[in-house]
């Protein structure tokens, strides 16, 4: 842990300052070059998933000779709507959006449709409507099912009964709901050995996750089966488990069966150290590729499906070596190691 934290901080800062400097100069650069311009509209960069996502997008865009324009809405739907209109105003060639609310994004899609600018939703699909856009999404439920299944198998292998807790994301986020459902699909089949004693609502907020887990551990000190709906909550989980004296490696006395989701660099580190048993990975490289591919298709006049699924995969203690190269967190981790 202590090995890489300072590095990530410094790196984050460098990128941050470069980004800040870069965005100021961007409009002028855009003018100077021909080629496609794509707007990247994020609602925040709170978790490593989004940070790495935007970095991969930038690299990928550069590879294809595209320019990017970026904007962050800070969870404000109306602001994001205005940002979409501003991007239409700037006559970008495509808009990649990560909206906060699945319903509230519909008018923005309509505006883009009216302007004839393709829109692609990254990782979060919009609500159903007559407006046309393409969404890229991980098959959350399936991935989560597979991940929890591994954990259940482990539990069976070790034996005994288990008290389970799950950290649930924002209930307004389809992804969070699908992951929760995937979790219950499996544990409900195994009620004989697993009892869910705590559902912690995090609203994708680290402070709430920490407080919630601490209180859960307080109320149920015998929790020994833990799943988080996102890897960005690992630091808080680690801290809470350490305080409760339950942060132990696989095979050690008092190890909590623990699974994550996303597949970030922290997850890889914890897999490597033996604290994390399994992790459902969203294939970020694939998703970016699919998103940009969708733009190319749309420009070519094709009409891809409204929803394109990333099948993802599960990385576990058993397949760590073979599958890690496909895990985006591993490549981030590798870069950090130097």
């Amino acid at each position, binding site marked *: 842990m202590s090995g890489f934290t300072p590095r990530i901080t410094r790196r984050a800062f460098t990128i941050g300052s470069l*980004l800040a400097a870069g965005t100021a100069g961007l409009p002028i650069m855009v003018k100077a070059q021909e080629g496609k311009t794509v707007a990247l509209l994020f609602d925040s960069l*709170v978790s490593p998933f989004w940070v790495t996502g935007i970095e991969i997008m930038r690299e990928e865009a550069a590879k294809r000779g595209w320019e990017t324009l970026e904007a962050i809405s800070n969870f404000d739907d109306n602001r994001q709507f205005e940002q979409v209109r501003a991007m239409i105003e700037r006559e970008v060639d495509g808009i990649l959006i990560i909206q906060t609310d699945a319903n509230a994004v519909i008018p923005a899609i309509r505006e883009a449709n009216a302007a004839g600018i393709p829109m692609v939703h990254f990782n979060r699909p919009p609500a159903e409507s007559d407006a046309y856009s393409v969404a890229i999404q991980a098959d959350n439920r399936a991935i989560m099912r597979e991940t929890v299944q591994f954990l259940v198998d482990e539990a069976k292998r070790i034996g005994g009964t288990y008290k389970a807790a799950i950290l649930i994301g924002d209930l307004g986020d389809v992804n969070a709901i699908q992951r929760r459902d995937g979790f219950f699909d499996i544990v409900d089949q195994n009620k004989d050995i697993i009892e869910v004693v705590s559902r912690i609502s995090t*609203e994708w907020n680290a*402070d709430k996750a920490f407080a919630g887990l*601490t209180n859960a551990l307080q109320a149920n000190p015998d929790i020994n089966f833990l799943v988080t709906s996102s890897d960005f909550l690992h*630091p*808080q989980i680690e801290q809470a488990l350490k305080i409760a004296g339950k942060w132990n490696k696989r095979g050690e006395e008092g190890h909590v069966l623990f699974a994550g989701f996303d597949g970030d660099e922290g997850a890889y580190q914890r897999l490597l150290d033996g604290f994390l048993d399994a992790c459902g990975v969203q294939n970020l490289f694939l998703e970016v590729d699919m998103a940009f591919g969708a733009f190319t298709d749309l420009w070519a006049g094709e009409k891809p499906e409204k929803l394109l699924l990333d099948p993802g995969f599960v990385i576990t203690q058993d397949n760590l070596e073979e599958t890690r190269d496909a895990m985006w967190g591993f490549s981030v981790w590798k870069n950090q190691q130097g």
Partner: protein
Amino acid sequence: MQVGENRTTLLLLNAAPWVAFLAVVVVFGVLSDRFLTIQNFMNILTQSSHIAIMAIGITFVLLTAGIDLSVGAIMYVAVAVLALFLGGIPVVIAFPLVGLIGVALGAMNGYFVIKLRGQHPFIVTLATLFILRGAAIFLTDTRMVFVEESVMSLGRTSYFGVPWAIWVFAVVFVIAWIVLRETPFGRQIYAVGQDPTAAAKAGINVPRILFSVYCICGFLAAVGGLVSIAQVAAASSTFGFQIEFPVIAAAVLGGTSLFGGRGGVVGTVFGAVLIQTVQSGLVMTNATPYIYPLVTAVIIFLAVLIDGLRTSILDTLGRRKIRVEEIA
């Protein structure tokens, strides 16, 4: 006769927070058998410590009839700087530096409050709140920032079975208590809050006092940030967002008046613990998380209502007293 009635009401209003606290403890104690344990009490104290520390800071400001809305933003800036720039530096050096940042940001508030006198500190600190949030977002680019293991380990450390956070909280509390009660500065804060004109007549340097309380508030906001980050390990872009509400609520709940001159840190600490007790109780009884802000809002509302009633009764009592004797 009416005077007597008012006195009784006043007594009741004064006791209201304590009665409320008792009621809360009893209700949750009945609803959850884990609620009334030493471990849980320790837990409540730990979780309320950063709010309590910041509330102590804001108590200084409220005593001068001011307000500081920017505490949450200061907290975020302080932690962001710690995470991004002070990574490799030992805690004994890094923490004082972070405290210094808090003082500097508080000084900025103080400067504007003094310079723009006649404008309510509310609007001034509302502006700095946004400027500082902007600064923090600039530093973090809305990403989550992480702190060193050495900082996080503090969040798990206990001395004599008492967590580090509670120690910090206790030290801040004791020093603040002594400063407010036993130093000339502390007593002058009360004088300024009661009547700034009279205070100036008595030779007190009113702008200096105002400036100082905002510095203290900024400093303790930074300390609160440190205590909080040592527990939660990482700060997202919502770190400290709207934390000014529970912080001000804690102080007001503890009997510190928004109109200055009345209150103190003992009540503030009590208020902070009460708020956390309610939250903790709601968690223990598995209440839906969406009810938390509602409960907090209602508590603050009632606290201010009680404060308003108390103030107006005190006024009537005071006025009546003068009148009665004038006539007698």
